[in-house]
């Protein structure tokens, strides 16, 4: 009997996404040439930690890492979920690990309840509020109702000491087929500004900075101050802000950032506010950082056509990479066609689901 070919990828780009897609599709993959040209070749600590997390959340998966760490063969098992505590390495925040879990959690055997310990904020990866107010609403649109990220402790870089609890209680058999053809109207802008182990005035200064910028859009702005003190505030001082533009339909756009030493809180607030405006202008239904989640959920939907409006500027390298990976692993392609409206050069991404069903779940 001819055995199936292993799909091979190269480089360390989209490492987490590849692993996640492979797990969803059940196909073994091989990733080679991971930083093979680098002075310090192979997998990094956080990637190994991520693989370990995947091993814990699945049953029967096998991960083979080559001696140099530049090649990984991943044979996915069954997503089991359950309770687990993951110690995140100091290099990466919890967002790095929580984000890929959002793709898998609704399709597991048992309810997901994972505690992540480590840093809770960084410049590059998803922050807690971004996940809570930015990504989870996207999941909700696809039928994943009961999911929450509880912040037990905040831990700013570099020392961290934070703790978050990801709970996904709704196990769905397949995502709802999505049709989002209209750019939704933003009804209000919300946000959270937090600080740990610094003066609470920083928070208010950030809020001021952001409000000043957002005044011009003429829309309700409501930014919550969230100053953490005591032992729940981690080991290092830090502060940051997340802004979320809400729509009545449930879609969200967001931007976030954290302050470092020497940054002016007002400037950070203003910058994040500007970034939010930029993000809004660049996105149709979902923001750039929500796009991957939305597209993957659409791909693993029913065998029906789902549609999502995207803007021209959303088609960037990352998006193309995502689509290519999806094509290689799932074999489905996304059909892009311009919207009928002449005024906008938005596109409609038409995706036929692969008819995925959550076979991990036990029969009721």
């Amino acid at each position, binding site marked *: 009997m001819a055995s*199936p070919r292993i799909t091979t990828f*190269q*480089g*360390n*780009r*989209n490492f987490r996404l590849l692993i996640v897609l492979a797990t969803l599709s*059940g*196909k073994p993959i091989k990733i080679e040439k991971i*930083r*093979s*040209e680098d002075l310090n070749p192979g997998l990094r600590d956080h990637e190994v930690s991520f693989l370990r997390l995947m091993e814990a959340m699945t*049953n*029967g998966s096998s991960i083979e890492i080559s001696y140099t760490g530049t090649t990984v063969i991943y044979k996915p098992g069954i997503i089991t979920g359950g309770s687990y505590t993951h110690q995140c390495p100091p290099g990466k925040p919890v967002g*790095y690990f929580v984000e890929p879990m959002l793709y898998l959690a609704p399709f597991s*055997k048992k309810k997901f309840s994972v505690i992540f310990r480590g840093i809770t904020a960084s*410049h590059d*990866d*998803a922050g807690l509020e971004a996940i809570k107010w930015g990504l989870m609403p996207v999941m909700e649109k696809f039928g994943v109702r009961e999911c929450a990220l509880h912040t037990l402790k905040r831990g700013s870089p570099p020392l961290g000491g934070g703790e978050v609890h990801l709970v996904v209680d709704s196990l769905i058999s397949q995502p709802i087929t999505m*049709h989002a053809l209209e750019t939704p*109207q*933003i*009804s209000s802008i919300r946000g959270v500004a937090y600080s740990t182990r610094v003066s609470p005035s920083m928070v208010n200064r950030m809020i001021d900075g952001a409000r000043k910028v957002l*005044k*011009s*859009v*003429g*829309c309700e702005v409501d930014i919550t101050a969230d100053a953490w003190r005591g032992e729940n505030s981690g080991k290092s001082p830090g502060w940051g802000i997340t802004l979320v533009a809400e729509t009545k339909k449930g879609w969200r756009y967001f931007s976030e950032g954290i302050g470092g030493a020497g940054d002016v809180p007002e*400037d950070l607030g203003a*910058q994040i506010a*500007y970034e939010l*405006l*930029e993000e809004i*202008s660049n996105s149709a239904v979902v*923001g750039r*950082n929500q796009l991957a989640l939305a597209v993957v959920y659409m791909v693993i939907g*029913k*065998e*029906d*056509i789902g549609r999502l409006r995207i803007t021209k500027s959303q*088609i*960037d*390298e*990352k998006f*193309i*990479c995502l689509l*290519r990976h999806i*094509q290689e692993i799932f074999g*489905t392609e*996304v*059909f*892009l*066609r311009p919207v*009928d409206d002449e005024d906008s050069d938005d596109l409609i991404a038409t995706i036929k689901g692969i*008819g*995925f*069903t959550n*076979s*991990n779940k*036990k*029969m009721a």
Partner: protein
Amino acid sequence: MEQSNREHRKKSDKATAKKKLHTQGHNAKAFAVAAPGRMARTMQRSSDVNERKLHVPMVDRTPEDDPPPVIVAVVGPPGTGKTTLIKSLVRRMTKSSLTEVNGPITVVSGKRRRLTFIECPADDLNSMIDIAKVADLVLLMMDGNFGFEMETMEFLNLAQHHGMPRVLGVATHLDLFKSQSTLRASKKRLKHRFWTEVYQGAKLFYLSGVVNGRYPDREILNLSRFISVMKFRPLKWRNEHPYLLADRITDITHPEVLETQGKQIDRKVALYGYLHGSALTSAAGARVHLAGVGDYSISSIEKLPDPCPTPYFQQKQDEYEREKLKEEGAAASSAPRRRKRLDDKQKLIYAPMSDVGGILMDKDAVFIDVGTKNGEGASFVPGQERGEGEKLVTGLQSAEKSLAENFDGVGLQLFSNGREMHAVDENSEDISGEEEGDGINTGRTALRRPRIYGKSVQEADAEVDGFSSADEDDNDQLDDIGEPRKKMVEIDFNSGNGEPVEAQTDSEFELSDHDDDVWTRETASKLQASKNRKKKWDIGKLIYMNNISPADCIKRWRGEAEDETVSDVESETEEDFFKQRAAGSEKVGVDDDLEKFKPHFETFKKLVAKWSSADSIKHRFLGAPKASAAHEEVEGGEDGEEVYGDFEDLEASESQVQSNGGDGSEQETAKYESDAESDAESSGSFADFDEEEKKDLTTEEEREQNAAKKENLRLQFEMEEGDNFKEDDPNNEYDTWYELQKAKMAKQSEINNAALESMTPEQRQKIEGFRAGSYVRIVFDGLPMEFVQNFDPKYPIIMGGLLPAELKFGIVKARIRRHRWHKKILKTNDPLVLSLGWRRFQTLPIYTTSDSRTRNRMLKYTPEHAYCFASFYGPLCSPNTTFCGVQVVANSETTGNFRISATGIVEEIDASVEIVKKLKLVGYPYKIFRNTAFIKDMFSSAMEVARFEGAQIKTVSGIRGEIKRALSKPEGHFRATFEDKILLSDTIILRSWYPVHIKKFYNPVTSLLLQNKSEWKGLRLTGRIRAEMGLETPTNPDSAYAKVERVERRFNGLKIPSSIQKSLPFKSQIHQMKPQKKKTYMAKRAVVLGDEEKKARSFMQKVFTVSNAKEEKNKAKKLDARKERLKKLAKLEEIKVEKDKERKKKYFSENGRKRQHADSGADAGSKKRR
């Protein structure tokens, strides 16, 4: 004479029920409930009936406009008339008679319906299982004289657990009943039995005798009408999987490979057939299961023109062609208009493995029946051809050169005025396959007269703009790689007189003028596309061109790339493709920012500059003021800050409406101005262009465009509005949840159709895959040679698509029950052949039960009449899938009992499972302290004890305890404590759970690879192995049930030392009475017998002795007589049984011709009744 008619009957004045209603001057019924109780009952009943009609709403994925043929399986025990029925039905539907029924036979049965008949081999359980999985309708044949036979019951049970297709019973051989009353009675009995099996009121047809080798026309007509109006509900499994019933296979291994490497190599095989179920993905390498062969990857798949199109489809195609011609402005269409009625020409039949119309397709040749030589209607006589088809054949017959020589260098002329194209190199391995033919040979030009669709090549075509050059490139490559095209061809032998003969052959050298239109058109458009390539890139294609790096993609799409590179990419071949990618990956390795969650933003300064005013996105906010006014002001060169300030004011006043005095009005006017201006500006360059375009359009076209726009809008609007169909609104238009779901599904399928129809065929293929209903050719590399070698068209070949989850292997936990008709219970780890999903495989299930949900405990045997769990290793299948299990599939091993041994449903799948079996360790105390005891004989080493430290133990009498520590001295002894003092005679029990591992055994039933398909033998059952090897069942003497002999326990009396006794309180003192000193009367009395009395007593004793002896003698005598009699009776009984047997044997040898075929397997067909 006066006619005397009967007097007219007078209207009676009796108060009828109707009149009574009107007694009060109005209709009582109209104003009150006459019988509330009855009304309640009727309402209850009608709602019950309605509710019973409902099924779980399920999406039907079968395309509406061109559905695949309905698979009608004819199933039944041997000799019930399956072949005769198929022949009769085919004859009824197509007016052509078959001499042999081999493989699926597809016929057109109505304007929009086709049927595929398949006969299920009667004596093969494997085929029955496969057929049960794909049949839409089962014609269940049964012999009216015998009623339900084992095969029928087995098939019904199989079908039930694979989704239950529609079942029509057909009882045959009813002419053999002599008396009408028995016929009627047995009909009734059959019907009721059938109803209990299928459902109450299931249709059962009765066919009487055979006339001219067919069933009576009237009965067949009724049956065919019944079939042709039958509706089918979607079945869950089939709705989720693509599948195909192969109606033809060809071995397309290159002959040279066979020659050089011998016949024993893996073959390249093409399967042909209609796709059913969901769409089959067009991505290469999709995994499918070939029932009876195994799991394989599709190496290529190709859609072929439908060999048996429905009249509806043909009509649509013709309409399309006419439209095209009209667009062309050509003369009146040459395509003939189809009639509305199904005429004889449309009654197509396609049965490549049977001999339809005198053409028989074998594995590697096509045989044509030429009729009687030189007879009356002889055809294919050289020189007297009747039509060009015959000419072709006779030409072939008289060929001097070999076929290969003849066609060496023959090209393919697509258009009568075009150049010949040359055949793609046969050698499929040759990827580069560049063909530079000259087109000298004219061998085929006379015969081929392809119709030209659309425009000629020279004309420019606007509609192919969509083709990007790259895509075209890809397609060409694909064509090069693929096999030379093989086409199904219809040769029209009809040349005026004579009967129309529909012949369908397969040959790579023939291209019909009918079926190939699609292909022709495609090629034509491709040719044109290559002429006017467009340099505009389509993002949809760019994204999936893996040889271009993502960054490059975007550049090109946005039109930043130079033209030189573009042409480079176009000319890239496969080899270049790899190089390019490798180069790209290096670059990929460098930048790492894909892992970054935060998207890229401009620097702060740029952002500030850009967003000094948020006007450009103002329209994105609800209730925000219109942006244009401010926009205008900024443009006018005023200070941006001021504008900003302006808004700040508004914001400060917290009012979203800006009707605030003069300020607002100013803005308003400004806005109008700006609008007008911007309009003028924007339309400035396009204005005249627009006008031009408008002039070109006629009013009709404009209307059409508008209509299309409206339709689009409507769809969009409805979708938007009906996003959740106002689900939460209790006043929505849907009364029930069911209706709501139905509406949702209908909406979604509408969206699907609309979205898919808007794509070009290529795009559609990519997105959707191959739809159900398309006739495809699927090529597999590396199928075992036995599959081809031992191919027998009588056995169905079924290809089922696999979902991603079904590719994995693991442990399946299922709820299972021994079938109540199966004679024996099932043993853990005894091999069982399961039919789960598409697959049939042997595995070793472990039966378990759940101990109050804390653990899965192994069971040695399945319980008698209850469900238990079974865990087995095998391919995973999503939960809620039902399956059946059989112990043996080989006919030689069947005993004639019911073969389906278990039925079940998948509960859960996992990579591993924890199953335990109970293990009791037993030990004995040898030294007992107060609550502590030393226990021996439970373990053999201290290490074992260490493993169980702290474990709970128990004595038989129920005293609980705990293992403490191992003793150092006698190895394996340990100290334990108990809640009370135990006895030395107690037995100590440690109850533990021993993990059981599932053996990873998976053995697919590869029955189609065998010469004798019904003789697949896998792992033997334990019992069978023992029987064959003459082994005894091992028995553990401990496990044997023996009579429990309990030794009487003697307890010594309680002895209390007198010293203690003395000190005891009075209450606790043991009170002992003094022994009696006086003699009792009985003891002291003396009996003295008198003489007389003595005599009497001794006499009596003698009498009794004598009588006793006599009695004993009598008894013995009687016993003997009885024994004798019993012996005699037994002998008589034996004789009677013997005689009975003889009689039965005689009867069945005379009357029971049913199973004769079994004795002489080969000539089963010929020995059929009548």
